[in-house]
Structure formats: structure tokens, C-alpha cells
């Protein structure tokens, strides 16, 4: 069952990801990117990562996808699509080289499996993950409290920066 689901999701995921890159119609590409995000969420579900799946849909499909569509709507000359330019071929060669390198690295490495690594939280399979994620994040002894707090400062700085850049000059 899970294997079948994986292959269906994988095919949808890869084909929509390819379509995002290859389609000339930018709007449809963005919509397919949202489909792609959903595919990733579905993959998470097959891995029993329910919280992660919902967060994926909420953040990527819900927020980032919409932001992308919004940016597209504010773009001029959209109907000309993604224009050709002379760096197309070098870019293709470079990305293929990078792909080959990554594939080579992934195949050539003797990967560490999860059982060999100390876990932050010991968690049984087939159980809801929300509370375990919370423990892994906020545990006093080996949680990720510091980066979490830095992230909140980061968001504040980003908000202030965005307000500064977007607002018009002149008096209030």
C-alpha cells in the first residue's frame, strides 16, 4: 500500500517539478509548484510525519505559493513568458554537472543510518509526532531553543526591513 502510494506521489511530484521548470506559462508553473508542495506533504504522510505534512501545506502551499502568485500578478509583460537568453546553454551544462556530482556523491557515499546516530528524542513509529517534535524543539537539555529564539528576532528584523523598504518617503 505504502509503496504504491510512494510511487504515485513520486511520479506526480517529479513530473510537476519538471513542468514548473519547463513550462513557459509562468502562472501555470506557479500552480504546478503548489501541486509539487502538496506532493511533498503527501510523502510526509506516508512517512507518518503528520505534523510536518500539515505544516508543509500551511507554509508552502498556503503562504509561499500564494506569495509567488501575488508576485506574478504584479509582474509586467507576463505573457511573453520566460524569455530565452544566451546563458541558457551554460546554465544547462552547469546544472547537469551539479546534478551529476550530487548523484555521484549520493551513490558513492557509505551513508550513516539512523540507528547509528544518537537521537534527540526516542520516538516509536506509528505515533502522532506533534508532541515529540515539541520536545525535540524545546527540550531544556538538548532542544533547539536558541535557534528558535533567534528566528523570532530574525522575523522582527525582516518585518522592520520590509516596512522600511516598501513605504514611501515623505512625511507621515
Amino acid at each position, binding site marked *: 500500500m505504502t509503496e504504491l502510494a510512494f510511487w504515485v506521489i513520486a511520479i506526480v511530484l517529479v513530473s510537476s517539478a519538471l513542468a514548473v521548470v519547463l513550462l513557459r506559462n509562468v502562472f501555470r508553473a506557479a500552480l504546478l509548484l503548489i501541486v509539487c508542495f502538496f506532493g511533498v506533504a503527501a510523502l510526509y504522510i506516508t512517512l507518518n510525519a503528520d505534523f510536518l505534512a500539515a505544516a508543509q501545506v500551511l507554509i508552502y*502551499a498556503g503562504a509561499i505559493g500564494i506569495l509567488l502568485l501575488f508576485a506574478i500578478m504584479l509582474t509586467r509583460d507576463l505573457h511573453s513568458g520566460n524569455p530565452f537568453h544566451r546563458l541558457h546553454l551554460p546554465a544547462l551544462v552547469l546544472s547537469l554537472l551539479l546534478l551529476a556530482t550530487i548523484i555521484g556523491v549520493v551513490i558513492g557515499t557509505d551513508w550513516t543510518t539512523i540507528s547509528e546516530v544518537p537521537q534527540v528524542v526516542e520516538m516509536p513509529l506509528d505515533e502522532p509526532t506533534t508532541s515529540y517534535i515539541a520536545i525535540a524543539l524545546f527540550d531544556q537539555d538538548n532542544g533547539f531553543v536558541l535557534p528558535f529564539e533567534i528566528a523570532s528576532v530574525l522575523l522582527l528584523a525582516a518585518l522592520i526591513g520590509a516596512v522600511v523598504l516598501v513605504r514611501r518617503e515623505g512625511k507621515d
Partner: protein
Amino acid sequence: MSVWEYIVDLFVNVRTDWIEWLQGFNLASSLIILLDSLIGIILMLIFVFPIVIIFIWLERRFIAWMQLRPGPNRCGPFGLLQPIADAIKTLIKELIMPAKGDKLVHWLAPVVLFFSGLMLFAVIPIGKGHLGALADLNIGILYIVAIGSLSVTAIFMAGWSSNNKYALLGAMRAVAQLVSYEVPMVLSIVGVVLIVGSLQMSEIVGQQSYPFILVQPLGCFIYFIGAMAELNRSPMDQIEAESELTTGYFTEYSGMKFATFFLGEYISTLAIATIVTTLFLGGWKGPFLPVWFWFVFKVFAVFLVILWMRATLIRVRIDQIMAFSWKFLLPMALINIFITAAEVLIWDKWMSGWESFPWPFIFVNWAIAVVLILLWSKIFFKLGGGRVEVGEVRPGYSQGYGADLQAPVS
């Protein structure tokens, strides 16, 4: 089990019997899950569609009653058959497709909206226990938030694919408004989640020995207003304002596609009403009468409040809507989270026996809510009440809307 006991929790009992009957056949467990979902979906549709049809009728009659006019009263008794007549009329109308529009996306948009609305019902409990909801997910409320954000995509697809400037403007407003209101809406839910300590919907209802509106008045208020904006309902229906945008993103929709859109909107409305019921009004809980009755009763009560607002309040300007979200609802939602978190800590430490009815918190929270709303609205209006500030017109530029986009007038 007496007949009455069977009826009290009708949905759950039907489903339990069905599963038991299935188990008698020695089927594979995955097949049982599949067939169980099937009956669940059918029960859900039986629940959803009649109510939606009644909603459509009720909206017209109720508003007519409030506006001192008869409303539709020709089809059947009290015009009860009017929605069916409407449906037949729209279904046989011509499907118009804008010549330069994106045909595929134009078709998909209403479907996406329709199903994103329907998907919300999967986690809503209309009966006791885990079988009360079609799928009592562990991350229930998060699922609702995640799926709820999908309707924006649908609206956007509709606006874009119509190749019509009014449709696009409507979609643009929609995205700006929905994205803005999603933030306070989600934050207002956090208060409830903090009290319950779980995201599961059955757990949220199970812990409400008293409706959570009593301890979360501010959260309920913010969620309700946010939901009105998410539904594009008056007074927040700037997105589809007839008078200025010729109904916004579905300007170019007709016939079956329009009907799907229309139905999708009512399904979303029903979904929001059920969510408000579940989160803040105690869900299916209630004395004496069957649980499904209490649930439907509360849903209708919420819907009538929505209608009441539509009939009473006038449409707000788009900049006022945006400012209201960012300058009014968002800070209040944050304050609400802070207060609730503090209270949960106090609760855990000193008040372990108060779960059944914590009246000091109820009193304090209502006082805080009233004072905050009054104070903040004063500040809100003092700071311009959501007027968009228009920058100084630079010398050499023409005045008027979008002046800064034009080239200098030399």
C-alpha cells in the same frame, strides 16, 4: 440499546454498526478502512448538502425579513423550493469562456474551491468519540488551517484565468485580504489549543465542559471576524463588490461553473460555522437532546449571526479592511495568546480543581476583552482608523491615484 439512545448519537452509531457488519466478512483491514471512509463520506454529504440548501433559502428569507420585505415566496410554501429552482436555472445556462482566458485553469478554479471547502468537514466531530468525525486526525485544527488556506488559490486561479481586469482586481484584493486575515485567525485558535493542550478536534470538544467562548471571548471574536473576511461575506466582501468590481473574480463565470462557485462559498460558510461551533461553542455537547441536534442548532445560530451582520453593517473600504486586520486584530490576537499562556501556567500550578467551571478566568477574560476592544478601538481611530496614507505628491508629478507610477509631467 434503546431507540432513543441510538438516535442521540445517530451518526456514530450508524458508523459503528457498519464497521461491525463489515468485520463479519473477514476482509483485509485496509479494505475495511476504505469502506468505512466511504460510509463516512456519504454521511458527511448527507449532513452537508441539505444544510447548504437550507442556508441558501434562509439567507434570502432572513435578510428579507430583517429588511421588511417578503423575499422569495413563490416556489413552494414560504419559497422553500426557491434554491432548487435557482439551481435548475443556473445549470441550464450557457457556459461562457473568455476568448483569451486560460481554459484549463478557468475550469479548475471552482472545483478547487468546492473541494477545499468539503475537505474541511473531514475532521469536524458531529458525534461522541473518535468515530464522531470522518477522520479524527491528531493534528485536526492544523489540518483545518492548512486546507483553509487553499481557497485563496482557487480565487486566484479564477481571477487570473478570466483574463478580465475586474476579475484580476478582485483576485488581487482577495489574496491581500485573505492572507492578512489568516494571521490573526490562526493566532486566535492558539488560545484554545493552549487550554486544551491538543490539536485533535474530538479532544477540543471533549474538554469543553463549558463552551470556550466563556474563557476565550477575545479569541472567538477575532476568529469570527477573521472568518467573515475569509468567506468574503459582507461587510468584508470588498473582493466581490458588485458596484465597483462587477462581482470581482467570478465576473466571467456562468452556468454550471458559477453554480459550483456559489455552492463552494456556501459550503465554506457552513464549514466556518461548524468550526466556530466546535472550537468555541462546545461542539455537539448539550443537555437532553440528541448530539446532532445540538450541533446543527449551534451551526444555525452562528449562521444567523453571520446573516445579521450582513444585513446590518455596510461594506468597508479595502484599505480599512486591511488596516483592521493588521492594526486591530493582529495585536489583539497576540495579547490574547500572551494572556492565555499566562493563565494556563497559573491554572496548572494553583487551580487544579477548577476544570469544570473556572469562573475567575471567565470573569477576568471578559473584562480584559471588553476593556481591550474599547481601548484599542480608541487608539485605532486616533491613529487614522485605517486610512491609507497618501504620500506627498512630488513636484512635477500628476496628482491622483497611481500618481507615482506615471512619468513626470514636464
